[in-house]
């Protein structure tokens, strides 16, 4: 498979030709294409099994168009290590869309280590979308550490609903100072023998810091999912919420472990967990419009994951 074919899977291939949009495309450990825009410093070093990326957004710079990152593998077997260091300076604002494309994977390991620092009043929006092949031969290990300064905003979305998950291990640790906002959304749909582990820790250490950890997971066949959410509030008026929805079918297994810890009487954290099969009324409504059980289930889960 050629890399340009791989890029087509992201459906955003034309963007990489636009000089006004920053991007970085990596195949295993090689920079295939790179473009920066004013105010964005991209420093990329190729390593043996991957790349080291340093991304810095200068003070007060607000980049309108999303920055596209593409981590691909045209290989069937490979180890890919990505180290990502991101600094969003004071008052800056960026949005990053990352495509992780492993369509050929038979035995692929993708290890991502991200360190993100979002300075005062800055905004960082990150959307990561995975596209895996159907063989189930992918192992993803992603660890992200995020530090939010005063009034910083961090919005993270992780989506893996196409192809087979394989083994997924997501680990987020977010610490928020005064009036910072952290919103994490994880959407994963597992089947076959997929194993999904999501671990999200959010520390609200500053006054009026806010955090929301949301996950929507669907597992069917023999897939297993475990969502471990920790939300801690130690400052007054910190507000947090955990929302975990898991849908199981067949022999799927879902676990949700929400841990809520508050040691300041002026802080407040809530959590909501729902694990079960597809709602009967939702299902029967669609069946009463002529869909069969399978089609109705698919439509409901696709909606939940959208």
């Amino acid at each position, binding site marked *: 498979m050629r890399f340009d074919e791989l890029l087509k899977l992201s459906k955003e291939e034309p963007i990489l030709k636009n000089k006004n949009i920053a991007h970085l495309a990596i195949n295993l450990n090689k920079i295939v294409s790179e473009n920066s825009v004013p105010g964005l410093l991209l420093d990329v070093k190729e390593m043996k099994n991957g790349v080291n990326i340093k991304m810095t957004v200068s003070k007060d710079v607000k980049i309108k168009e999303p920055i596209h990152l593409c981590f691909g593998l045209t290989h069937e077997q490979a180890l890919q290590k990505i180290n990502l260091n991101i600094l969003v300076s004071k008052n800056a604002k960026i949005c990053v869309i990352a495509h992780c494309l492993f369509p050929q994977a038979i035995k692929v390991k993708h290890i991502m280590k991200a360190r993100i620092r979002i300075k005062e009043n800055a905004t960082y929006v990150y959307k990561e979308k995975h596209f895996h092949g159907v063989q189930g031969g992918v192992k993803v290990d992603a660890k992200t550490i995020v530090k939010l300064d005063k009034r910083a905003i961090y919005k993270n979305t992780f989506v893996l609903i196409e192809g087979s998950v394989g083994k997924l291990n997501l680990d987020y640790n977010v610490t928020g100072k005064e009036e910072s906002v952290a919103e994490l959304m994880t959407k994963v749909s597992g089947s076959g023998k997929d194993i999904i582990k999501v671990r999200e820790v959010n520390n609200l250490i500053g006054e009026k810091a806010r955090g929301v950890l949301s996950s929507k997971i669907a597992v069917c066949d023999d897939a297993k999912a475990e969502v471990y959410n920790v939300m801690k509030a130690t400052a007054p008026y910190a507000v947090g919420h955990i929302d975990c929805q898991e849908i199981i079918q067949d022999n799927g297994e879902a676990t949700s472990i929400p841990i809520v810890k508050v040691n300041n009487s002026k802080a407040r954290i809530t959590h909501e967990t729902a694990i079960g099969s597809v709602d009967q009324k939702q299902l029967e409504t669609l069946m*009463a419009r*002529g869909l069969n059980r399978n089609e109705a289930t698919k439509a409901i889960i696709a909606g939940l994951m959208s």
Partner: protein
Amino acid sequence: MNILELKNLSIFLSGKKILDKLNINFSQNRIYAIVGLNGAGKSTLAYTIMGLSGYRDIQGDIIFEGRSLKDKTITQRAKKGITLGWQEPARYDGLTIKKFIMLSAKEKNNNIVSKVLTQTGLNPVDYLNRAIDKTLSGGERKRIELASILAMKPKLVIFDELDSGIDISSLKRIFDSIKLLKSYGSTIILITHNLEIIKQAGYSFLLCGGKLVLEGNINKIYPYFKNECFICAHKNKPKNKPKNNIK
């Protein structure tokens, strides 16, 4: 021609008889009302005709277009042209109104969604891409369900309390939709206790304690319902032959 016939239809739920030997015929392309107090068995009848899970184990029979529905699943009944509008429509996280209506639509063309939304009084621009979740009001969800049924063009539709959550000023629009369905050839069964809704129907059936106690046009049904049922001391325990029943 009868499109639907209930033949000695009874159903037990948790060991309790909820529908009791109903014999009712519905002719094609007419509007009917099913009237009764809370707990009379109206929703149960709707679910039983649709064949929802838990409502399949019946005594007697349900005949649609001359064939028994007894062994038919919900999907099979829907494919024959039967559908149901719920008393309290389902919510779907993430599923958009557009997708939902498209899934229901008989002819899957691009204009159908906007068309049926407009017909139920919802501006497509504001609704197409919204999810059918808790951010929609009860009345909005009712209309979206109605829109999906308009798109389906069913042969037979049962609306369970179509008016619940709909304000009086919007009722006319809803009635227009009912007339539209009738113009498509649909047979419509309206479950209700609302006089305005009963007025839409040419013929009504009054249920009490799972039994059919009276049938006729509004001039016969409504006075009885108002004068006898509202003050009835033995709610949902009908006498064998209610007075006035000229059946």
